[in-house]
């Protein structure tokens, strides 16, 4: 412990560490607080519009239930409080869905559409900083650990005085890890706490998510600290160690992630949402034709054993709407379900791409723990669809069960509008998120274990 304390005191006196730490903390604080401010404003705006939508729905004039179904409303994806740390899929998948009769509308208005070309440079949120800058900080902190002493000759002195390379390495690594953790984890914990305290957290299990998220970022930082220590063990000079470290940073943080996307496109190409939509429309068209409607109407009459719709105990139009919607639900379940399943499988496959770079594995783990991964998006989309179907079923049933034989239009009022509860989307639990990230978490651990394993023989053979 005294050795770790001595190393910590040395690091504390190092101006380089203070400068690097200040820049990193400022960068994370500025980005995180900017995201928090945006999230707070968006949250207020969304709450206001949700309330206004509910008021509009309840306050609509008397009208036919099917018209009310078309009138519809908008629902919003609840944002995880940790989205200020890792927005994950949120800016890329849309947060608002229009609920209306017949249509399984996609989530629209992705923040990324409003972002200019520069916003894709790779430093737009805290998770980007952790993914790109924290490795650089870890490398800059660790590259000189042995190489500088070797260059100055103090390593020869230390080893000559009986210092064992193993404990020396352990002490330096522990001290550097403690410094890195304080530079990375404390600001992240503070930002996460601010978000949890000020943004909506209902159902998010926000505190366990935050601690798990920060722990994973710490592991990621430690991986690059080990890379720097390895470079320091291998290189004869501090400058050489720095060159190796920078090369590793470029390869692992910049080139490998893009190679992963190119490789994934070859191995498992992304499904096309547009083609899925075309298939849905092709399936729906013959079912919606006038002839097809006529045939189904005749079949319905035959089922009830009557020949005139006026003899039916139910409203034929309502009955047809129920049947048409059920057909559409089945088509959506099959086509959109298959599309989402393929996309989810592709997202999971990116976990394996973590073998190319810890940054790829981190991205997958990070967004799942932050509650902003694709699984949460899919869960929201299907929750919104279930809500839409519940409204349509209720409105259709109202028409079906109240036959209007005199040709008078059926008008419904506030009682029916109140029968529709507000949309309540609950996020997927943390246990489900943890279940989604088994592979990338194992791969991150593997990186740590492998680097440790590689460093052991190098420590034993360390040359002064």
């Amino acid at each position, binding site marked *: 412990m005294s050795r770790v304390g001595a190393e910590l005191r040395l690091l504390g006196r190092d101006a380089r560490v203070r400068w690097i730490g200040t820049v990193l903390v400022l960068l994370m604080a500025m980005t995180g607080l900017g995201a928090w401010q945006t999230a707070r404003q968006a949250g207020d705006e969304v709450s206001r519009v949700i309330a206004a939508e509910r008021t509009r729905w309840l306050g609509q004039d008397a009208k036919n239930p099917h018209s009310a179904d078309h009138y519809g409303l908008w629902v919003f994806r609840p944002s995880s409080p940790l989205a200020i740390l890792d927005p994950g899929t949120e800016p890329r998948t849309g947060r608002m869905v229009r609920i209306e009769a017949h249509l399984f509308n996609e989530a629209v208005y992705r923040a990324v*559409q409003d972002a200019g070309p520069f916003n894709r440079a790779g430093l737009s949120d805290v998770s980007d900083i952790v993914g790109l800058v924290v490795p650089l900080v870890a490398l800059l902190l660790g590259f000189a650990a042995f190489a500088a002493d070797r260059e100055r000759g103090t390593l020869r002195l230390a080893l000559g005085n009986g210092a064992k390379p193993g404990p020396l390495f352990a002490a330096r690594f522990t001290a550097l890890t403690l410094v890195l953790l304080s530079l990375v984890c404390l600001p992240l914990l503070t930002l996460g706490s601010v978000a949890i305290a000020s943004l909506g957290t209902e159902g998010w299990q926000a505190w366990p998510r935050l601690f798990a998220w920060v722990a994973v970022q710490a592991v990621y930082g430690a991986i690059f600290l080990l890379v720097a220590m390895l470079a320091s063990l291998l290189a004869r000079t501090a400058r050489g160690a720095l060159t190796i470290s920078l090369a590793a940073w470029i390869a692992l943080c910049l080139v490998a992630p893009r190679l992963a996307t190119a490789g994934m496109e070859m191995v498992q190409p992304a499904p096309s949402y547009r083609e899925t939509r075309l298939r849905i429309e092709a399936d729906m068209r013959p079912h919606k034709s006038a002839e097809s409607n006529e045939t189904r109407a005749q079949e319905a009459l035959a089922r009830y054993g009557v020949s005139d719709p006026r003899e039916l105990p139910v409203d034929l139009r309502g009955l047809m709407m129920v049947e048409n919607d059920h057909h559409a639900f089945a088509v959506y379940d099959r086509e959109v379900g298959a599309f989402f399943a393929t996309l989810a499988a592709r997202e999971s496959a990116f976990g394996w791409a973590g073998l190319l770079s810890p940054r790829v594995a981190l991205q997958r783990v990070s967004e799942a723990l932050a509650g902003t991964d694709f699984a949460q998006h899919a869960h929201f989309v299907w929750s919104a669809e279930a809500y839409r179907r519940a409204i349509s079923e209720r409105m259709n049933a109202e028409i079906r069960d109240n036959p209007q034989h005199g040709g008078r239009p059926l008008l419904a009022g506030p009682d029916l509008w109140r029968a529709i509860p507000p949309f309540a989307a609950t996020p997927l639990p943390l246990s489900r998120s943890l279940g989604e990230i088994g592979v990338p978490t194992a791969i991150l651990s593997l990186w740590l274990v492998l680097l440790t394993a590689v460093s052991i023989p190098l420590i034993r053979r360390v040359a002064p």
Partner: protein
Amino acid sequence: MSGWRFLPLLRIELRLILREWLTWAVLAALLAALCLGASTGARRVAAERAAIAQAVEDSARSRREAKETAARYAGPSGVKINYWQDPTHAFGYMHYFLTAYAVKPPTPLALLSAGQSEIQPSVMKTSFGFSTVFEDTAYDLTSSAALRLGPFDLAFVLVYLVPLAVIAVAGTRLAAEQDTGIVRLIAAQPVSPRLVAGAKFGAAALILIVAVVGGTALALLLAGLRELPPGWATTLAFLAVALGAYVGVWVAACALAVSLWRGAVASLTILVLAWACLVVAVPALFGLAVDALAPPPSRIAAIDASRQVQDAFYRGDEAAKVTGAWLVARMPGAAVRPDLREAPQIKRLARDAFYDRTLAPYRAAMQARAEGAAAWSARLALLSPAATLALALETAAGTDAGRHAAFLAEASRYRQSVRAFFEPRILSQEVRPATVCADCTARLDFDAYDVVPDFPVAGAANAAWRQALWSALGLCGLMLVLAGLATRRFAGWSL
């Protein structure tokens, strides 16, 4: 720098660089990356072309089905045909059968850069429903993980990796000699440091420019780029100059870093950090600047506004008033007929016009923002060599934000032109319904399927060559400035 002494030195340096295994390793890796980037670009372009072909086929299919259905409905039939799905009626055709698309075809150089194509689709279905509050709701939902990590396209290789290759080959020229003490020997010879540095970095520049420009050309050829339409060869030539200048900028930056006389590793460190700043950090700062200079309007507020409009239309007798006013504006005589105000087709047209008019400021703000962000991005890009080259590549590929903003505006105009095509036909059919067939349940008063306007596809050739030219000039200028600074610093040896 006298030519008779420079050229032999240059030849020697060329031979030296070409004898180094590192040079060949770097160039081979770069060529592999260029080929991979070009092949991913070719796949993306093929997918875009397939999507456009599918859209064209879908439009043709809808016309074909409308004609077939109209032929079926041409005689007496017992089938009830709703007005909204009657292809022989302008309203029914417009709202049920018509399948029109706005398309942004890939340019001949589209495989150069994915640009904004992953988040801004090149095929948008023209919709007349209320769900489309704005023009840019179309989006091909895809893998978010891939979007976050970014594509491995040619632009990535040229903008991000080429400078690293340049640094690897040229970053230690002369600095390595300084580290090993050979500089002292060279300094003892009757040659000036400018002559030596000129030969060393000139040779590196020659090899790298030929390798990068030639490698890119080879990658493009292998990816299937053969012939270019008129005008595009000029763009490609300007791009080649810009690319050569970009390589030159980084070679000059290497010379400048070496001219600090801090040794090889220090030069490499300075260069890599400069690369990280110019290629990653500065564009990220530009992104913040664009958001500040052209702040995006709130989408949520726009949705709320759209709902307020919808709510207002359906409240009380507002629908009747709006429809009446709409009728008066178009056919003053027809407004006195109360049946017209209640006709669902007329009500729908009046409603859509009401929505369009009331939400026009929101649409305009969104369009202005898209155009403003594109314009500011283009201006700011000139301040960074990486962003300048990226913008030139995106513009040549037609995947830039400016082209997409123009595409959205054109899609909006197209939607209005299609509406303008159908509106008078629907109105006249409602005002003066003409019975064509007594026992037919279809209206049989519309068959102009083949004269519905098509989306006018706009070219991107002019913007492409202009941006390529500006970028080439900017990069050449920067290269000369950096080379000048380096030359000035190589006034004497640092021993």
